[in-house]
Each structure stands twice: as C-alpha cells, then as structure tokens.
C-alpha cells in the first residue's frame, strides 16, 4: 500500500467514525441528533448535485425538483398507500428518479447556462403544481398527516419516530448505501467517462464516447440519488412542502457543493454541515441569517475558489 492510499484510508476512517459517533459528540458543541439527521440528508442532496456538477461538469439549477418529488411521493405513499418506511423511500426514489430521467432526456443537448436555465424552468413547473394542487399536496400549507413508521423485522421492531438516535442511525445507513454506490460508480469505467466529459468534452467525443448518452445517464443517476435524499427528508420532517421543490433550494445545494469543494467527493457534505449548522445557529439569533451565509460565500469564493476541501487537496479527481 502506498503512502497516498494509507492517507486516503485514514481520512475515510475518520469521516465514518465522526458520523458514526455523531449523536455522542455533537451535544458538546451544542448540536442535537435531529440536526445531525438533517445535515446527512441535505449533505446527500449536495453530493448528488455534485455527482453531476463536480464529476460530469454539468450544472443543474433545478435539482430540488427531484428532491421535492421524492419527498412528496414518499409522504403520499405513507399517507395513502402503505404504512411502511422502506416502501415510502422506494416510491419516492422511483418517482423522483424516473421523472428526472425522462425530463433529462430533453436536456442533454443543452450546455452551460442554457442547461441551468431549463433545469430551473422544469423545477418551477413542479413547484407550482405542488403549490396549486390543494387536494393532493395541501398547497402552500404542505403535506401533513404522515409519519415515519417503525422498521419491522418480524421478531422485533425499531421505533424510528420517537427515538431520534435510532432514526439518526437509520438515516446514516441510507446515506452510507447511497454514498457507497456513488463512489462505486465514480470509480468504474463509466464514472471515468463522466470525468473525461468534464475535462474535455470534444476530446471525449472523439474517443468514441457518445457524450449525450453518458451525460443523460449521469443526470438520471444523480436524480435518483436526489430523490432518495428527498424521500429521507420527508421522513426527517414528517412533512413535505412546495419549498422543497423551489429553485432557491436547488441553489442551496449548489452553494453547499461549491463551498465544500465541487471537485472533491466529500466536499459537498462539509459544505452542507457548515450551511445547515450556521443556518440553525444564526437563525435562532436573527431572521437575517441568509446575509451571513451570503457573506461567508463571498469570502470563500474570493479566498478558497476550490472550496474547503479543494484547498486541502489542490488536485484529485475520483
């Protein structure tokens, strides 16, 4: 094993240890378990956006659409169809992911700002549908009347609703599965074609990579991850509302990714931690918390253009 690999393993072990013991060390810094669950879910969202942005070089400004669709589909499943947490997650992931994959097929020929604009437009369509369709979504009041269900293993049950620590570990498990899958894809020959497209699309095309097809697959995968995160978010809050579809949330995810370092795998999670924790602390002091976040972003873009992790590791791609 080389020194590089050993360092890599040590960092991975530290990240997972920190996440695994979070419910026990967070209280010393004023954190609480439910906040940890929120950070993980939003971090997964930011990593999903970055799967596309940082590794394929495609900026979506409407990814909240798939996040929100996942949340609504998960909530509606729990409310109307089946009292099962895994089924809700599955339904949310499929609905958001399939919708993203279908609409993504219309997008893959657009590039840069045009791609971003069309993704915003798609996102806003879903936002207004959720806003207006009172009978199904509850409109501006949001979707209520569902709650995460205990995990039933036959012999025993795990109560996710009342025990925050159990729920945190459930979220961590889901996060680990999704993030593991992401890392696996990025390390595969297909993942390397994504990076090739990011690095030099013209070159990639001339190697014989059908660029549109590969961007579409990357986009669709990222939508499924996003919808999975959204479904989890419905469970975190036992609630879904139209703002989960709104482009300002899409922007938050992009900010998390850029702040943390979009060319790095773990950067967006760090970005999400900073974003969510600051939001939590500052918003308890002043309603103008967004101006402080804004100031922080300006400072980061000026002094750490590659984000927190990008500064530590000037170059590493997968």
């Amino acid at each position, binding site marked *: 094993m080389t020194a590089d690999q050993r360092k890599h393993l040590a960092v991975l072990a530290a990240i997972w240890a920190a996440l695994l013991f979070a419910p026990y060390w967070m209280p010393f810094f004023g954190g609480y378990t439910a906040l940890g669950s929120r950070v993980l879910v939003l971090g997964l969202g930011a990593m999903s956006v970055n799967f596309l942005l940082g590794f394929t070089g495609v900026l979506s400004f409407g990814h909240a659409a798939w996040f929100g669709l996942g949340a609504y589909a998960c909530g509606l499943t729990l409310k109307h169809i089946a009292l099962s947490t895994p089924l809700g997650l599955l339904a949310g992931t499929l609905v958001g992911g399939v919708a993203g994959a279908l609409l993504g097929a219309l997008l893959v020929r657009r590039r840069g700002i045009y791609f971003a604009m069309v993704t915003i437009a798609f996102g806003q369509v879903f936002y207004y549908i959720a806003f207006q369709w009172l009978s199904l979504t509850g409109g501006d009041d949001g979707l209520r009347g569902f709650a995460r269900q205990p995990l039933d293993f036959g012999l025993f049950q795990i109560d996710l609703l009342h025990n925050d620590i159990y729920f945190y570990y459930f979220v961590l498990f889901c996060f680990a599965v999704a993030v593991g899958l992401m890392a*696996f*894809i990025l390390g*595969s*020959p*297909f993942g*390397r*074609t994504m*990076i*090739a497209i990011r*690095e*030099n699309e*013209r*070159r990639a*095309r*001339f*190697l*014989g*990579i*059908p660029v549109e097809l*590969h961007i579409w*697959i990357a986009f669709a995968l990222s939508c499924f991850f996003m919808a999975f995160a959204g479904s989890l978010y419905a469970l975190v809050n036992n609630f879904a509302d139209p703002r989960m579809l709104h482009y300002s949330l899409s922007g938050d995810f992009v900010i998390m990714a850029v702040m943390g370092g979009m*060319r790095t795998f773990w950067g967006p999670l760090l970005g999400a931690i900073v974003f969510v924790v600051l939001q939590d602390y500052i918003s308890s002091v002043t309603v103008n918390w967004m101006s402080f976040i804004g100031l922080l972003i300006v400072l980061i873009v000026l002094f750490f253009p590659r984000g927190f992790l990008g500064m530590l590791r000037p*170059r590493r*791609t997968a």
Partner: protein
Amino acid sequence: MSALEVEHLTKRFGSLVAVHDISLTVEPGELRAVIGPNGAGKTTLFNLVSGFFAPSAGSILFDGADITGVPAHRRVGLGMARTFQITEIFPELTVFENIRIVAEVAAGYRLRPWLNRSEKAELRGRIDETLALAALSGKADRVVGELAHGDQRVAEIAMALALKPNLLLLDEPTAGMGDQETYEITQLIRRLHKAGKLTIILIEHDMRVVFHLADRITVLDQGRLLAEGTPQEIAANAAVQTAYLGQAA
C-alpha cells in the same frame, strides 16, 4: 485495398469552398504528409476524414468501406484516431489516467460498472505498452496539464495510440515546439510507423519533418489538390514552389 480513399471531396462553408473536389488514395502502411499554405484546407480535410464535419459532396472510403455518413465516434471504433492542432487532453488527470480512459473506451468498457481481474490485467498491459511506445512510462503519474508543451503533444499521440488505430491522423504534431522537441517527436512518429505497420497521415508545416518522414506528400492550395508525389518529386515541382514562394520565385 487502400487504407483511405477520398473521392471528389468538397466542403463549403457558405460561399467559401474550404475543400474543393479533392481525391486522394493512401495505401496501408504509408506515411503521407499533407502540406500547404495557411488556409489551404488541410485541417478541414482532416475534419472531413475523421467525421467532425459532413462533406458537401464526395465520399470517403476507409479500408474499402464507405464511411461518408458514419459519425465521428464510430469511425474511432473502425480504427481511425486523430490528434488536434490545439492539444486536446484531459488536463487535470495524470498521463496514466488519460491513457486509461482511452483504453477502456477502446475496449468497449465505457458503460461497464466494473471489470473482472483478467480484463483489468489486459487493460493494464495495454496501457503500459502504450506508455512504453510513447516513452512516457517515467511520467505516468504526472498531471498532464502540468507537463511541458512537447510532452503534452506526446501524451496526446499516446492517447490516440491507445485506441489501437490502423490509421492515425496527426494535425501539426510539432506546432509550437523547439528544435529538440521537434526532433524527439519526429523520432517518435518514425518509430510508431515502423513498429506498428500503422498508416499515418500528417499535417505539418516544418519541411524538415515532412521530408524526413513522408513516403509521399500531398500539397493543397486554396482548397484544391495542387500536387502529389514522393518528396523528391514535390521538391522539384514548379507549381508547389510558386504556391509557397510566390510568383516571382
């Protein structure tokens, strides 16, 4: 059967005729140089042959098969590889990673989620072989974007080689290079040509390189085929001298 046959190829951009009724035949294993003043249509010809542009008229036969309508990425699969006038690489990746992407795509693994042990070993062998052929083994772990210009050009040629082409199109491989780098890349092209039974078509401005390497030379001027022949024939050709040096010469 010829490696490449171009028949009456024409490309118009609006009223500009960049390539005008050009026909040429390149035999297997030949090293052909394409020369001509700026704007003669050399790169446009490459773009037509490699499928970057569709021709306005005419046809292209590769190994005897008509590929006029075949898209660029499929021509790669048929055994045609090219480099560009402006270096086209994956700048933030290492030399090894650059070659690996090419080798994986060439092996048809681009959509594969994983590779088994023997596939990995075979790929590794192919990458190492390519690196050795291009004399880049010592620089495999360097980030390509940080290499010297000459080494970046060599890395780009190595990427084309990893596609295991039958026909290699090199667009001004020595552009922007000093004497030493030009010499090294000339040696590299000669070595590749000898080692691989590779057909090579080369656009080049440096006449020392052209006359040193080429079996035959094609001269273009203002989109038209001006002359074709061995280096000796071209050197003695009055029309070529006029095109290059002007009427008074």
